[in-house]
């Protein structure tokens, strides 16, 4: 157990490790961390949280109002902590938590529709912030297949291969979604294709 933890430590705590190596070993680290968390290691789950919080944040940001995202991220990880024993494959933590996040976003809209529609238009923002909110709104209005991938790439700064590994989508699908989504976004922003 100590050997596995040490491996996870080394790979997680060193950002200088190459991206390719991280992608290859990510599923193995994920499995080790899930195993540790299931054995009662809270630090193990903390590392899973550090690893997957940007993914969950991005998925939520593409679907729910910005003000709700942080609380929902915490809620989703608390739910995952309680229900971790229901995860069938330890290597599928990413797709599993991504699915929980998507379902939670749907649940949020179902509930908020019955009460009050919450919007992101809160006053007192500076210009760059409002520009960011404006572009985010444009991304949210894109077809569902593209918006999540674009937010993960442009907002969370993940690469295409990272998105594929963490969401469980095929690299080809992610590449197509990024390419087509970016094309639509450029059109909406009035950017020329060739520039």
């Amino acid at each position, binding site marked *: 157990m100590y050997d596995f933890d040490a491996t996870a430590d080394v790979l997680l705590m060193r950002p200088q490790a190459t991206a390719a190596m991280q992608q290859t070993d990510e599923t193995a680290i994920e499995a080790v961390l899930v195993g540790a968390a299931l054995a009662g290691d809270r630090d193990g789950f*903390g590392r899973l949280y550090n690893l997957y*919080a940007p993914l969950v*944040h991005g998925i939520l*940001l593409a679907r729910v109002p910005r003000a709700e995202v942080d609380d929902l991220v*915490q809620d989703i990880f*608390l739910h995952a902590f309680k229900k971790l024993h229901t995860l069938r494959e330890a290597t599928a933590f990413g797709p599993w938590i991504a699915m929980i996040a998507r379902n939670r976003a749907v649940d949020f809209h179902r509930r908020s529709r019955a009460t009050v529609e919450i919007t992101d238009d809160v006053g007192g923002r500076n210009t760059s912030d409002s520009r960011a909110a404006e572009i*985010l709104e444009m991304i949210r209005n894109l077809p569902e297949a593209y918006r999540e991938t674009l937010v993960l790439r442009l907002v969370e700064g993940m*690469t295409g291969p990272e998105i594929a590994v963490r969401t469980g989508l095929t690299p080809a699908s992610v590449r197509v979604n990024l390419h087509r989504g970016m094309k639509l976004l450029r059109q909406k922003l009035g950017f020329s294709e060739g520039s």
Partner: protein
Amino acid sequence: MNDDYLWDKSGEPDPQIQELEEILAPLRYQPKPLQLPNDVRRKYFRLLAIAATVLIALLAAGVWLKVRKQHTIPPQEAKSVVPSELHKEPEIVKNTDLSSKPIVRKRIRKKTFSQRERQEAREAKEQVLLALRVASEKLKLAQRRTQGPSLNQIKNQHKVG
């Protein structure tokens, strides 16, 4: 348009994508500590409370049984003991096995209790019964605490996934 930069940030950076990345950077995830529920310690405390209660109950039951056993010896049996037998030498039974030592059987004297001793024993019994009742109440309380959250709490939980 540089597709490689969009895909894995390799190759020549695309200025439009870079501009979008800069604008959207403030929306990026800001690391925050995860607050996990600290219910493990409470769980152990409950288990410890149950174990302690069971131990007290067992001890009390043991003491009570001991006192009861002493109390139930009929006093008239002492009358049947012939005084000459009490002063007899211990009976030696020769063992057919030569390798082992002879077995010495000792007669156990049966003790008789006086009226005062019986009264004391009764009082002790009452005390043990009282202790058992207290232990039983504690056990019930511990069971009630370990039965988990109330129905209202269960109803208020959010359904996710």
